[in-house]
């Protein structure tokens, strides 16, 4: 039996190609139990393939992996018993109601009738689908379908859940609901392997992030560690008039490169957005008695991360394999 000390997922040297297209080029990962791990990358980076392999849907060409202590090559049945998968495209039965979908999962998990009903009712309640539960799921909105999909995954009480781009295509409100649900899951001790193309999402949720590009992990660490490696964070200052702009430029030039926009009356100053760095900036402006109308902090986004880590913009291969 697996114990708590061992990682929920351990991967070494995983490779996979389709024909002569290399999709995963030897990836190594360790995900401690009870944490959220995010695989961050653009379309075509190999995220879905990684999930498909770890979820026993596809076989790797080489490399080893353990999920919940079970060997991927020899114990796929045991792995299937301990995982849940919610894909990018909600895999619900559109002809059944939400409740019937959950009962189907209960039957397939070999729960008793009574236990299945109890579980279905509990999940409908928890995912705010009580009313919708009686309706056929083709009538659901994108967010509702995604919630039902995740609820179906939870019927089997998985210890590791793979979430493949769980919020892609959702509106901001549904996305935030999804984030809340994911946080609750991990609070109950479940391990989550999340793939996403949004840095913000990985930043919000993940304990650790690995950046995947062209089938390789190009960086790994906490959100903080990754962002620190990325230039591109800056502070934008807006002034009331050209005179104040010039004064500000003069006061800050000593501290580093400053770029001024005379028409918009703004200055851009490199800054990592940390409290300390901001205070230093403000002290400097105060010291020179410069009046600033507005200050805004710009943290790097996925494009900056990608450009910094890979040297190419991330949308260069949108049409590649998912």
């Amino acid at each position, binding site marked *: 039996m697996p114990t708590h000390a061992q990682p929920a997922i351990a991967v070494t040297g995983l490779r996979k190609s*389709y024909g002569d297209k290399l999709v995963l080029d030897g990836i190594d990962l360790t995900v401690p139990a009870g944490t959220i791990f995010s695989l961050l990358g653009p379309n075509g980076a190999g995220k879905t393939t990684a999930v498909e392999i770890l*979820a*026993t*849907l*596809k*076989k790797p060409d080489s490399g080893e992996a353990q999920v919940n202590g079970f060997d991927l090559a020899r114990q796929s*049945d045991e792995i*299937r*018993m301990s*995982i*849940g*998968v919610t*894909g990018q*495209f*909600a*895999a*619900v*039965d*559109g*002809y*059944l109601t939400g409740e*019937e979908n959950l009962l*189907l999962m209960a*039957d*397939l*998990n*070999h729960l008793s009738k009574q236990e299945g009903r109890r579980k279905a009712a509990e999940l409908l309640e928890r995912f705010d689908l009580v009313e919708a539960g009686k309706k*056929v799921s083709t009538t659901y909105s994108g967010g509702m379908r995604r919630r039902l999909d995740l609820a*179906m995954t939870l019927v*089997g009480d998985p210890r590791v859940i793979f979430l493949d781009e769980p919020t892609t295509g959702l509106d901001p409100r549904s996305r935030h609901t999804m984030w809340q649900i994911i946080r609750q899951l991990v609070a109950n001790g479940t391990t989550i392997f999340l793939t996403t193309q949004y840095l913000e999402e990985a930043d919000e949720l993940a304990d650790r992030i690995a950046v995947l590009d062209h089938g390789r992990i190009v960086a790994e660490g906490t959100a903080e560690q990754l962002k620190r490696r990325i230039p591109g964070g800056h502070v934008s200052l807006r002034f009331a008039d050209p005179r104040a702009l010039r004064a500000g430029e003069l006061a800050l030039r000593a501290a580093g490169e400053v770029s001024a926009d005379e028409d918009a009356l703004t200055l851009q100053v490199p800054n990592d957005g940390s409290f300390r760095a901001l205070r230093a900036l403000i002290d400097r402006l105060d010291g020179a008695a410069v009046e600033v109308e507005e200050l805004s902090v710009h943290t790097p986004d996925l494009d900056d991360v990608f450009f910094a880590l890979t040297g190419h913009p991330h949308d260069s291969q949108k049409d590649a394999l998912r």
Partner: protein
Amino acid sequence: MSSTTLAMRDSMTMLRRNLLHAKRYPNMTLSVAFIPIFMLLLFVYVFGGAIGKGLATGDYVNFVTPGILMMATMSGSVVVAVSVSVDKTEGIINRFRTMPISRASVMTGQVVGSVIQTMISVVLVTLVALLIGFRPAAGPLGWLGVIGLMLLVAFAITWISAAFGLIAKGAETASNIGLPFQFLPFLGNAIVTPESMPAGLRWFAEYQPFTPIIGTLRALLMGQPVGGQGLVAIAWCLAGAFAGYFWARSAFNRRADS
């Protein structure tokens, strides 16, 4: 529980799912029965007078009904191809594959569910045939034979269609599987006897699988001796069912490694 019990249990769950679909959308079953019923009326009332005279085998409705029943089996099989294809494109098959369930149960549920639906539409077509004057002369054993043969044909065609649904690009392509199957009986002895056809076509009509199957069905229904064609019919059905089953199984498993 042993793995066989689990496989049975999972297959029953999958079957329930398919029957729930059929119950919720009865139009699917009805529309499957509609085309053969329309054909039956067309051939009996519109063409029947002219064709029947040339055949001289008694009442034309008795001649054409077995052929129409075969068509009903064919159009029933379209349902499974579409439904498997939808499962595949919607990703629910992938969900099933990440669960600790018997893999065979997914397709078994689909196929058994579809065969039941097909049998319902076959019964509907038979009822309409009886209403318009079809008078079978089969005894209890004959009817047993009819039911057995229809089931065997349905399983064969349904497994082949299910495999096709797995490899089809989408539901639309999958729905096209029915067309050749539906028209194949026409190029045999469903509507007329092959003797009236030109040489090349006659040769095809005599040796294609549906001719011995429909011939056997007709003989069973009309209480006539079946003869050697019965074995040929059963052989074709078994070959079709096995080929379809193994094709579907390999298509289902192949998706795991590609």
